[in-house]
C-alpha cells in the first residue's frame, strides 16, 4: 500500500494533528473526535437531506482549499487588516479589537478597559489553556459530530476569540472580532465563544471579510454563547465575504433565567451561505430577539435556518428576517419555533419578508411551529412581493427618478430591521453598506489593495 503524505495545509487529518499538538489535552481530544466524525459523515446532499433541499453544494470540493496560507510575506495583506480596522473605527471606535487571519492573531488593541473590569478577552486557543472550564462551558453548546460542517469547524479552527464576563459586570466597551482572508482557495474557521456570568452584559461584533472578486474561499464558522441568569448579550455579525466564498455558520446561544439575547446579522457577501441561528430559552423569563438583513444579487444563494426553542416558562422570542433579492439571486429561509410541553406562557414570533426586485430571483420561506404547551401566543408570517406600484408612483410623481425611487423603497423596506440593531454604530455601518449594495456601487467583499495572502 502506497503511503501518501497528507499535506497539513489542506482539510486533512494532518492539519488537525498540527492543531491538536498545539492544544491542551482536552481540546486535542475534542479535535480528534470531531475529525473522526467529520470523515464518517457524508456531505449534505440536496437530494436526500431535507434541510439542504433548496441549497445545492454539490459543486463544493473541500479538497480544493488550504487552511494555511502559502509561506511568505506576512506583512503583505496587512492592507486588508487596515480595512477591517477602518470599518470598526467607523462603527465602534472604542471597541476592543482583534484581527484574525489564517496566520493567526494579527492585531489586538484596546483591551485595557475590559481587562480592568475583570473581563477575559483573548484568543480562543490561549483561553483553552488558561481557562479550560470556562471555555468548555461554551463548547458544550455543540455536540461533537452533530453535523459534518460543524465537525469540520470543531476539528480545524485555529484562531478564535474568547470572552468571559464575570458576574454583574457590564462590559464597558464592545468586543470586535474581525476575521479576514485573502488569496485563492483559502479556508478559514472563525470561532467566537463567549460566556456571560449572572447579570453580566456584553456587546460583541463578528465581522467577516475578504477582498472583492471571485477568489474561491471556504468559511466554516461558529459563534457560541452561554448566558447566565439575567445576563445580556448583543451580538452582531457582518458578513462581507467576496463573491467566490462558500460560507457556513452556526450561531448558537443558551439562555439562563431572565437572560436577554439580541442578535443582528447582515448577510451581504459570499457566493453561497447557509447560516444557522439557534436560541435555546432554557431558563424561565428568557428573551431572544433575532434580526437579519439579507441582500442578494447576481447569482448569490443565501440560506438562513433558525431555531427558537422554548424550554423554560414565560419566555419570549422574536425573529425578523428581511430579504431583498434581484438578478438571479435565491433566498431560502427555514425556521422552527419549538415550544416544549412545560413551556407555558411562551410568546414566539417569526416574520420573514422577501422583496423581489426582478430578474429571475427566487425566495422560499418555510417558517414552522411545533407547539406542545397550550398557554402560549405564537405566530409567524412570510410574505414575498414586488415593489408596490402605488409607492413607486407616489415617489415618481414627486419628481424622484424611477431608479432612485426603487432604491428608496428597498432602503425603506429594510428600515425596521435596521432599527432593531442593538449597537447604533453597527446600525449606521450596515445602513451604509446596504445603500452601496442597493445602488450597485459595491460588489461582494471589501475593497482592498492587491497583494498578500492572509
Amino acid at each position, binding site marked *: 500500500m502506497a503511503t501518501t503524505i497528507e499535506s497539513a495545509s489542506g482539510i486533512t487529518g494532518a492539519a488537525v494533528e498540527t492543531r491538536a499538538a498545539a492544544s491542551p489535552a482536552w481540546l486535542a481530544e475534542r479535535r480528534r473526535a470531531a475529525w473522526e466524525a467529520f470523515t464518517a459523515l457524508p456531505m449534505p446532499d440536496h437530494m436526500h437531506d*431535507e434541510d439542504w433541499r*433548496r441549497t445545492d453544494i454539490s459543486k463544493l470540493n473541500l479538497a480544493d482549499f488550504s487552511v494555511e496560507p502559502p509561506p511568505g510575506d506576512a506583512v503583505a495583506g496587512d492592507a486588508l487588516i487596515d480595512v477591517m480596522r477602518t470599518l470598526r473605527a467607523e462603527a465602534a471606535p472604542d471597541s476592543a479589537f482583534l484581527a484574525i487571519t489564517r496566520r493567526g492573531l494579527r492585531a489586538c488593541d484596546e483591551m485595557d478597559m475590559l481587562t480592568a473590569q475583570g473581563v477575559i478577552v483573548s484568543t480562543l486557543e490561549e483561553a483553552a489553556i488558561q481557562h479550560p472550564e470556562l471555555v468548555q462551558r461554551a463548547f458544550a453548546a455543540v455536540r461533537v459530530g452533530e453535523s459534518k460542517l460543524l465537525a469540520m469547524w470543531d476539528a480545524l479552527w485555529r484562531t478564535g476569540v474568547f470572552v468571559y464576563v464575570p458576574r454583574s459586570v457590564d462590559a464597558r466597551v464592545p468586543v470586535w472580532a474581525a476575521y479576514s482572508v485573502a488569496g485563492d482557495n483559502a479556508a478559514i474557521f472563525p470561532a467566537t465563544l463567549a460566556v456571560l456570568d449572572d447579570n453580566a452584559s456584553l456587546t460583541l461584533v463578528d465581522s467577516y471579510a475578504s477582498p472583492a472578486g471571485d477568489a474561491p474561499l471556504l468559511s466554516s464558522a461558529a459563534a457560541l454563547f452561554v448566558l447566565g441568569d439575567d445576563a445580556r448579550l448583543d451580538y452582531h455579525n457582518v458578513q462581507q465575504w467576496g463573491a467566490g466564498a462558500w460560507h457556513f455558520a452556526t450561531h448558537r446561544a443558551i439562555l439562563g433565567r431572565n437572560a436577554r439575547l439580541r442578535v443582528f446579522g447582515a448577510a451581504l457577501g459570499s457566493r453561497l451561505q447557509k447560516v444557522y441561528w439557534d436560541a435555546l430559552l432554557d431558563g424561565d423569563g428568557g428573551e431572544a430577539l433575532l434580526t437579519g438583513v439579507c441582500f442578494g444579487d447576481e447569482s448569490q444563494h443565501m440560506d438562513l435556518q433558525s431555531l427558537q426553542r422554548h424550554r423554560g416558562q414565560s419566555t419570549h422570542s422574536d425573529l425578523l428576517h428581511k430579504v431583498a433579492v434581484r438578478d438571479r439571486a435565491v433566498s431560502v429561509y427555514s425556521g422552527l419555533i419549538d415550544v416544549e410541553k412545560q413551556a407555558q406562557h411562551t410568546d414566539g414570533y417569526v416574520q420573514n419578508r422577501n422583496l*423581489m426586485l426582478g430578474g429571475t430571483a427566487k425566495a422560499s420561506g418555510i417558517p414552522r411551529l411545533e407547539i406542545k404547551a397550550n398557554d*402560549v401566543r*405564537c*405566530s*409567524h408570517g412570510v410574505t*414575498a*412581493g414586488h415593489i408596490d406600484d402605488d409607492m413607486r408612483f407616489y415617489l415618481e410623481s414627486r419628481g424622484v427618478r424611477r431608479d432612485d425611487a426603487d432604491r428608496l423603497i428597498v432602503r425603506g423596506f429594510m428600515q425596521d430591521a435596521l432599527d432593531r440593531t442593538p449597537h447604533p454604530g453597527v446600525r449606521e455601518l450596515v445602513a451604509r453598506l446596504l445603500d452601496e449594495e442597493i445602488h450597485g456601487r459595491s460588489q461582494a467583499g471589501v475593497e482592498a489593495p492587491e497583494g498578500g495572502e492572509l
Partner: protein
Amino acid sequence: MAVEAHELTKDYKYGFHDVDISVFRTEKGLSPEVVAAISAHKNEPEWMLKFRLKALAHFEKRAMPTWGADLSGIDFNNIYYYVKPMEEQAGRDWDDVPDSIKETFDKLGIPQAERKFLAGVSAQYDSEVVYHSIRADLEKLGVIFGDCDTGLRDHSEIFRKYFGTVIPPNDNKFAALNSAVWSGGSFVYVPKGVRVDIPLQAYFRINSDNMGQFERTLIIAEEGSYVHYIEGCTAPTYSSDSLHSAVVEIIAHKDAHVRYTTIQNWSNNVYNLVTKRAIAYEGATVEWIDGNLGSKVTMKYPAIYLMGERAHGEVLSAAFAGEGQHQDAGAKCVHVAPHTTSNIVSRSISKDGGRTSYRGHIKVYPKAHDVKVNVRCDALLLDEASQSDTYPYSDIENPDVSFGHEATVSKIGEDQIFYLTSRGIPEAEATALIVNGFFEPFVKELPMEYAVELNRLLAVQMEGSVG
C-alpha cells in the same frame, strides 16, 4: 464515450386466465393475484388490469413516508383489500356500539335507520329512492353521476382520457395502493355550460361496497360548468377497516367551477390517507372545503394546480383532534400560469391530547407572473396535553407576486371567556360558543343541514371540555 444502458420496459405477466377468483377474494393481504381477482370480478378491460398491476409494483417498491403522522400501526398484511368473508360483513352487534356514539346519535337527531348503518351494525342504507329521483333530473342535463366502475364500463373513452392524469399511480405510496385496489367512489361528468344546482352527495349511493376503503373519485367539469360534490357526514361513522386510502381527481376546464366538500368523522381506529388534487384551467375555479373530525390519523393535503390564466383556487380546512387523534392536513396550490390567485384558510382545534398539523405548499413557477396568494392558519389548543404544528412551505420563483402567509397558535383568550361568563354563561358553554365562532368561516360554506349537524356535533364534542 462508453455508455451503460439498462433495461427499462417491464412486462406484467398476469392475465385473467391465471387467476382462480373464488380463492383469493376473501383472503387478507395484497398480491398480484388479489389485484387480478378484483379486476376480473369487475370485468375490467385489459388496460385497467395493467394499470392496477403496475401500481401494485410501485406500492411494494416504495418506502413509507418519513414525514407526517406516525403510520407504524398499519399492518398491511392484516387487511382485506377487496371483499370480506360473510362473517365479517355481518357487522357488529348494536349492543357493542359504544354508549358515547349512541349518545352522539341522540344529540344529533340521526334517524334510526341511519344509526345502524353508521354504527357498522347494518351493511345497507336505503337511500335508493332519493338517489333515483335525482338521477332522472341529472340525466336530462346530460350529467353523469355514478360510480367509477360504471364510469369505466359505460363511459370508457372519457374515463380513460382523464383517469390517472392528475394523480399518477406512482405519485406516492398510498396513491399507488389505491391505484392497485380501488373500488367504488364516484364518477361525475358535467357537460359544457351545465350548472348542477343541487349538491351531488356521495351519501346517496352508500352501501358497504361503495363506501369503501379505497374509493376512487373522478370529476370532470367541462367548459363553463358548475358542480358541487359532497362526501362524508358529520355523524360518527364506524368502520371496521383500519386503512382508508382514497384518491380524488378533479379536472375543471375553462371557466368551470367545482366545489368539493368533505366532512370526515371516521371512528378512532382508522388511518385515513388521502390524495386529492385538482387541475384548474383558464378562468376556472376549484374549491376544497375539507373538514376533518374523526379517524386516528388523517394525512390529506388537497391540492390545486392552476394551469390556465386567471384560474383561482380556494381551500378551506377545518380540523378537530381529540384524544388519540392526529389530523395532519393542509393544502397545496401550484401556480403554473400567470394571473392566477389562491386563498387558503385553515382552522384547527386540539383537545385532550389531540394533535393537529397544518402542512402546506405554495409554489409559483418562473413563468407565473402577476400571482396573488394568501394563506391564513389559526390553531387553538384547549388544554395542556394537546399539540399543534404548522409546516408551511413556499417557493416563489417569479418576482411579480404578492404572497402572504400567516399562522397563529394560542389558547382561547381569557378575556373572551370572561366576557361571556360575566354575562352569566357557564364556562363550558362559553368555550363551546367560542369554538363555534372559530369554525364559523368553515361552517358557513356548508349546505344548511350539514352546518346544523356540525354545530350540534361540536357542542357535543365540547361537553366536558373544561376540566
